[in-house]
C-alpha cells in the first residue's frame, strides 16, 4: 500500500484541534450543557396524540396554562409524538400526572402518555455527581492502566487524546444544545474506552518499531506505525460506525442522543489517535532509548 504522510500535517491538525478545544471550552463555560431531567430535576412526558390534533404550539399553550414552570415541547420521531419537559416535579401527589392528562385531553383531544419521568432535586443532584465521578474515575483508570503498560510519554499522549475527544464531543453537545442525560454519560465512558483502544493499537506498533529500527527518527517512525496499522484503524472504525449508524437511524428516538455521542466520539477518537497521541511522542523526543532504558530498569 502507498504510504500516506500523516506526519506532514501534525502541526496544522494540532492547531485545528487546539482551536476546537478552546472553542468547546468557551461554549461549555459560557453556554453550558443542556441537562435533561436526569440531571436537572423536573418532569418529562412523552406523549402521543391523535393525528388530527397534533400541533406543537397548541400543546405548548395548554401546558403553559398549567403553571408548571419552564415548559419545553419538542417533536419526537414522528409527527404525532412529542416530548414535553417542565421544571415542576411533584411525584408525591399521585394525581399530579393524571390531572395534567385530563387538562391536556380537554384542550387537544385524546392523548396517550407513553413515558413519564419525574426526578426530584435531590436525586438529580446525586445522579449528576455520580455521572461526573464515573467519567473522572474512568479517565483515572485509563491513566493508571496505560501508565503500567507504557512509558510515561505514551501515557501523556493517550490521555491528552482522551481529553481531546471528551471535550470536543461535549462541545458539540453544547453548541447544538443537545440533551445530556444518563445515557450520554454511558456514551462518554464508552468513547473513553474506544479512544484508548485505538491509541493503544498504534502505540503498541510504535513501541515495536522503536525496538526494530534504531536509526529512524520518531517523526518518521510514528508515520510508519500509523501506516502499518491504518487498514485496521479504518476497518474497525467503519464496522463500529456501521453499527452505531444503524442504532442512530433505526434504534428509535430514545437512543438518538446516545448513538450520536458515540458516533462523534468514534470519529474524534480515531482522529486523535493519529493526530494528538503521536505528535505528543514526537514533541517529547521519544527514541529507542526511552523504551530500552525502561526495560533495563
Amino acid at each position, binding site marked *: 500500500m502507498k504510504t500516506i504522510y500523516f506526519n506532514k500535517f501534525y502541526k496544522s491538525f494540532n492547531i485545528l484541534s487546539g482551536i476546537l478545544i478552546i472553542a468547546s471550552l468557551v461554549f461549555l463555560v459560557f453556554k453550558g450543557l443542556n441537562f435533561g431531567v436526569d440531571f436537572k430535576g423536573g418532569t418529562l412526558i412523552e406523549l402521543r396524540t391523535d393525528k388530527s390534533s397534533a400541533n406543537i404550539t397548541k400543546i405548548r399553550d395548554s401546558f403553559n396554562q398549567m403553571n408548571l414552570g419552564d415548559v419545553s415541547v419538542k417533536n419526537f420521531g414522528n409527527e404525532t409524538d412529542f416530548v414535553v419537559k417542565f421544571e415542576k416535579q411533584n411525584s408525591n401527589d399521585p394525581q399530579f400526572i393524571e390531572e395534567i392528562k385530563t387538562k391536556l385531553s380537554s384542550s387537544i383531544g385524546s392523548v*396517550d402518555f407513553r413515558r413519564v419521568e419525574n426526578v426530584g432535586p435531590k436525586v438529580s443532584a446525586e445522579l449528576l455527581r455520580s455521572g461526573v465521578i464515573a467519567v473522572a474515575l474512568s479517565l483515572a483508570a485509563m491513566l493508571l492502566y496505560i501508565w503500567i503498560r507504557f512509558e510515561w510519554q505514551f501515557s501523556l499522549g493517550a490521555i491528552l487524546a482522551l481529553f481531546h475527544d471528551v471535550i470536543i464531543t461535549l462541545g458539540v453537545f453544547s453548541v447544538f444544545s443537545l440533551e445530556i442525560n444518563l445515557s450520554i454519560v*454511558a456514551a462518554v465512558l464508552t468513547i473513553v474506552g474506544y479512544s484508548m483502544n485505538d491509541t493503544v493499537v498504534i502505540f503498541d506498533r510504535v513501541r515495536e518499531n522503536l525496538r526494530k529500527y534504531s536509526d529512524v527518527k520518531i517523526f518518521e517512525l510514528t508515520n510508519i506505525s500509523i501506516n502499518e496499522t491504518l487498514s485496521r484503524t479504518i476497518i474497525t472504525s467503519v464496522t463500529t460506525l456501521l453499527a452505531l449508524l444503524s442504532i442512530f437511524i433505526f434504534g428509535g428516538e430514545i*437512543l438518538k442522543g446516545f448513538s450520536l455521542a458515540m458516533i462523534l466520539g468514534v470519529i474524534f477518537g480515531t482522529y486523535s489517535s493519529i493526530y494528538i497521541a503521536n505528535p505528543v511522542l514526537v514533541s517529547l523526543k521519544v527514541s529507542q532509548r526511552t523504551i530500552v532504558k525502561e526495560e533495563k530498569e
Partner: protein
Amino acid sequence: MLYFSKLRVFSVLIFTLIISYFTISNFTKIDDDYFSKNIKLGLDLQGGSYLLLEIDNEPVITQRLQSKVLEFKKFFKDKDIKVRNFVIEDKSIIFDVENSKIEDVKSLLDDDKSEINPYFQQYKSHQFNFENMNTSFKLEFSDYGLVLLKNSSLDQAIEIVRRRVDEVGTNEPNILKRGNDRILVELPGLDDPGRIKSLLGKTANLTFQFISSSSEESFGTEKLSFEDGSSEAIVSKRIVLSGDNLMDAKPTMNNQTNETVVSFSLDRVGAKKFGKATSNGVGKRLAIVLDGKIISAPEVREPIIGGNGQISGNFTFQSATDLALLLRSGALPAPLNIIEERTVGPDLGKDSINAGIMSLIIGFVLVVAFMFYKYRFFGLIANLALISNLFLLVGILTLFEATLTLPGIAGIILTVGMAVDANVLIFERIKEELKNENNSIVAFDSGYTKSRTTILDANITTLIAAVILFFMGSGPIKGFSVTLGVGILTTLFSVYFIARLITAYYVIKNKHKEKLI
C-alpha cells in the same frame, strides 16, 4: 498457536453449544422450568413503573426520643436519682440532675454495660452521645445509633410497602433497600402508577378519638380538620384505639343506608378497649382519624362490644377498597416521599424492542457484508466468530438472568461493531507476516502471537469503562455496561477459540496455496 488438541476442540464446541442453547431457549417455549430460562426485560422494554421512595425519619426520631424520655424517667427513679426539666429540642434530650449525682449519671451513661445507653462493641459506639454542662445533660443519637434507628424503620417500612404492593396484585414486583433511607419499587407491566403511588404515599395511621365538648380535658385536645376539608372539630388527644389492634378490614355495603363502608374487626385487646370506651361514651361522637384528618365522626348510639365496626365516610367502592387495604397492611413507621419516578407504557416498550431488534439486524448485516467484502474467505471466518459471539453473549445473559434494557441492546449492537476488531488486528498482522515469510503456517502463527498483547490492551480499556459504568450507573445504563462487558469476554473467546480453530484447520489444509488471505 495453531495447534489444538482434540479435547480442546471438543470442549470449545460443547461450551458454545450449551451457551447457545440458552439463547435459543428465549425464542422457544419449553415447559421444563429447569432448562428453560428467559432473559429478563428491563422496565424500559416491557413497560412498567420505577419508584424511588425516601423515608422521612424526622417523626421517627422524635417519637423515639419521646419514648426514651419515659425510659430515662423510670430508670433514674429506680436508681433514686432526681432528674427534672426534660426537654426534647433539636433532636436531643436535655435534662437536669441534682448536684450530688452528676458523676453517677455520667458513669451510668458512659458505662460499656450501660442499660440505658447501650454500647455496641463492634462499632465502638454508644446509642447516644452526651454532653454535660454543670447540672445539665444533653443527649443526642450517635452516628451508629442513628443508623440503627434508620435501618429498623426502613425494614418496617419495606415490609409494609411489600404488603401494600402485593395486595394490589401486580406481577413480580421488585422491592429493594437502597442505602439506609430509601426503597426502590419496580413494578413491571404497570401502566398507571397513580393508585400504587397514592397507597404508598399514605402513612395510614388510624386512630379513634372522641370529639371533645369542652377544650379542657386531662389529656388535652387538638383541632383536626375533616378529610373533605368541609369543617374542623376539636378532638381529645386520648387515643381510644389505634390501627395496631385491627385484625381485618374490607369494603362492604351497608344495607340500611346503601352506602359503601369499610367494616373492620379487632383483636381481643382491641375489642375489649373499644367495648369499654363505647360503653362509657354513648351519646358522644367518635372521630375516626387517618393521618391527622377526620374521615367521619359518627355518634355512638350503643356500646360496640363484639369487636366489629364500620367506618363510613362518603366512600366510592374504590376508595373503600383502598382504605381497607391500607388498614390491613398496617401503618408505615414514617411518611414516604416519592423522589424519583419513571414509567414506561407497554406500547413504547414494544416499540423500543422492535426498534432495538431492527437496528441489531441491520447493524449486523452491514458489518457482516463489510467484513466479507474486505476479507472474502477470512471474512466468513470472522463472521462465523461474530455469530457465535452473539449466541454466546445472549446465552450468558440468559443463563445469569441479566436484565436486558434498551441501552443494553445498544451495547449488543456496539459489540457487533467492535468485536471484529480483534480478528481484523490478527488478519492484518498475518498479511504483514506473509510478506516476509514463505511458510504460511509460521506466518499465521506469528500473526496470532504478535497481535495478542495489542488485542488484550485494546479490550481491557473497554472493559475498564464497562466495569466503572456497572458500579456507577443505574437501571437501563447498568444494562448497557453488562452487555458491553460480557460482550468483550465473549468476543475474546470467539476470536481465540472459534475463529482461530477454523483458521488453523483451513491454513493447515491449504498451506501451499498462494495468497491465503
